[in-house]
C-alpha cells in the first residue's frame, strides 16, 4: 500500500512540476512578446524621428543620449540607412558620430558579454559601415567566434577598409569552409584591390594546400579583374594539383579573356578528362572562334563528358551552330551524337517540334534526319 501511495505522490509532484513549468514558459513567452512589441513600437517612432532628420535639413526634433543607447534606435538607424542613399547618408553619419553609436557598439564587441550581445554589436557595426569602427573590426577578425569574424570582415568590406584585405586573405588557410566562403563574399566587396593579395596567396600556398587556393581562384573570377588572367595561367602551368587546375580553368573561363585561349586549348589534350572537359567549357564561355576547330576535334574525345562539354561550347561560339551541323555528318558516331545533343539543347524548339511531329524541315533538316535515323526523335 505504501508503495502505491508513493507512486501516486510522485505522479502528483511530477504533474505539479510540469504545470508550474508550463505556466512559467507561457508567462516568459508573454513577457518576451510584450518586450518585442514595445521594441517594435519604439523602433517605428525612431524611424519616424530619423526620417524627419533625413528629410528636413533644419529638423529640431531632439535625439537624446538615452535614445542613442536603445537597441531599438540602433535597429531604426540600420533600417533607415538601408532605405536611403546619397546625401542623406551624411546626415545619418553625423547622427552616428554625435551620439557615439559606434563607440558604444565597439565597447560591447570588446566586452566579455555572452556571444549574443557581442554578435549583435558586430552585426550593427557591419551594417552601420562607419570607418571609425575599423580598428575594432580588425581586432575581431581574430575573434574566437566564427560568426563574429564573419561580421567583422563584412563590416570591413562595406567600408572598403583595404588594410584588412591581407588579413582576410591570410585567414583563408586556417578558417572553416563556411567562414572561408563568407570571407570570399567579403573580398569581392573590395573589388580589384583584392586581386593581388589573392594571387599572392594562391602562388604561395597552392603547392601544399588545396581548399584555400581553390576558393581564392573562385573569388578572383568573381572580382572580374582581367589583370589576374596572366598570373592564373602561370599557376595553371605550374600546379600539379588537379583540383587547383580545375579551379584555375574555371576562373579563366569566367574572366573571359581571349588571352587564355591558347593555354586552355592546350588543356584539351591533357591526359586528365576532368581538365579537358573543364577547358572545353571555359573556351565556350570565352567564345573566341579561334578555338572552334579544336573543340570540333574534341567531339571525338574518348570521354563522353568531354564530348558533351565540347559540343555545348561550340554551340556558344559565333557560327558554332553551323559547325555542329557539319559534325552531324561525321563518320564518328560519338561526335555526331554529341553534336545532335548540343543542337537539341541549343534550340528547345527543335525537339519540341519533333515531339509534336512537326519537324522544321527547312531549317533543321540534317538534325531531323539524324534524330529520326538514330531513333532519338521518339518522344
Amino acid at each position, binding site marked *: 500500500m505504501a508503495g502505491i501511495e508513493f507512486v501516486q505522490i510522485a505522479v502528483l509532484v511530477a504533474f505539479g512540476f510540469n504545470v508550474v513549468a508550463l505556466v512559467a514558459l507561457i508567462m516568459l513567452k508573454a513577457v518576451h512578446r510584450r518586450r518585442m512589441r514595445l521594441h517594435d513600437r519604439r523602433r*517605428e517612432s525612431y524611424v519616424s524621428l530619423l*526620417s*524627419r532628420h*533625413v*528629410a528636413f535639413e533644419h529638423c529640431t526634433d531632439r535625439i537624446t543620449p538615452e535614445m542613442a543607447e536603445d537597441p531599438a534606435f540602433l535597429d531604426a538607424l540600420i533600417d533607415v540607412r538601408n*532605405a*536611403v542613399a*546619397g546625401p542623406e547618408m551624411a546626415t545619418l553619419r553625423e547622427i552616428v558620430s554625435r551620439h557615439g553609436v559606434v563607440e558604444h557598439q565597439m565597447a560591447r564587441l570588446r566586452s566579455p558579454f555572452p556571444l549574443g550581445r557581442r554578435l549583435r554589436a558586430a552585426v550593427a557595426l557591419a551594417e552601420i559601415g562607419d570607418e571609425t569602427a575599423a580598428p575594432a573590426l580588425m581586432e575581431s577578425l581574430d575573434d574566437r567566434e566564427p560568426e563574429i569574424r564573419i561580421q567583422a570582415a563584412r563590416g570591413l568590406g562595406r567600408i572598403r577598409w583595404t588594410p584588412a584585405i591581407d588579413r582576410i586573405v591570410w585567414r583563408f588557410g586556417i578558417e572553416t569552409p563556411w567562414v572561408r566562403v563568407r570571407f570570399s563574399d567579403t573580398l569581392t566587396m573590395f573589388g580589384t584591390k583584392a586581386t593581388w593579395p589573392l594571387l599572392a596567396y594562391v602562388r604561395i600556398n597552392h603547392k601544399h594546400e588545396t581548399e584555400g587556393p581553390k576558393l581564392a581562384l573562385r573569388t578572383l573570377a568573381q572580382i572580374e579583374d582581367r589583370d589576374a588572367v596572366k598570373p592564373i595561367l602561370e599557376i595553371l602551368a605550374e600546379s600539379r594539383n588537379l583540383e587547383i587546375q580545375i579551379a584555375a580553368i574555371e576562373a579563366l573561363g569566367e574572366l573571359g579573356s581571349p588571352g587564355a585561349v591558347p593555354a586552355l586549348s592546350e588543356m584539351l589534350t591533357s591526359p586528365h578528362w576532368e581538365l579537358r572537359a573543364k577547358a572545353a567549357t571555359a573556351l565556350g564561355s570565352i567564345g573566341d572562334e579561334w578555338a572552334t576547330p579544336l573543340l570540333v576535334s574534341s567531339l571525338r574525345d574518348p570521354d563522353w563528358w568531354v564530348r558533351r562539354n565540347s559540343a555545348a561550347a561550340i554551340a556558344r561560339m559565333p557560327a558554332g551552330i553551323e559547325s555542329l551541323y557539319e559534325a552531324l555528318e561525321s563518320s564518328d558516331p560519338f561526335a555526331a551524337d554529341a553534336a545532335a545533343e548540343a543542337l537539341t539543347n541549343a534550340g528547345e524548339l527543335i525537339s519540341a517540334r519533333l515531339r509534336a511531329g512537326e519537324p522544321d524541315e527547312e531549317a533543321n533538316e540534317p538534325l531531323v534526319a539524324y534524330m529520326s535515323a538514330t531513333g532519338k526523335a521518339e518522344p
Partner: protein
Amino acid sequence: MTQPKRILVADDSPTITTLLRSALEGAGYEVSSAIDGVEAYEKGRDGDFDLAILDQLMPGLLGLEIIDRWHKEGIEIPVIMLSGVDDDRTVIDSLDKGAVDFVRKPFRLPELMARIRHRVQA
C-alpha cells in the same frame, strides 16, 4: 484654406512607409499607407488620392497589377513606382502601364520629394 494633397504610400517594408509618411506629413501632405498590395488597391479604389507611391514587389498584388486593376475600374491616380529590382524591364513595364515615374530603392529622399512635388502640382 486649401485642402492638403492626399498621397497613398504602399510598401511592405514598414521602414519605407514610416520614412515616407514622416517626410510627406512634415511637408504638409495628408498620407495614407498600406503594407500589402490588396490593401493598397482597396484604399486607392475607396479614397480620393492625388498621387500613389507603390512598391512593385508586395504581397497580395504587385504594383503593376494594382495599376492595371485601377485602370480597368476607371480610377486614375498618378503613380510613382518604387522598386528594389534593378532591371530595365520593370522600369519599362511600369511606364508602359501608365506610371508617371519610377524610383529605384535605395532612394535619395530629397530627390523623391522633388518628384512628388512636381507630380502633385502638375
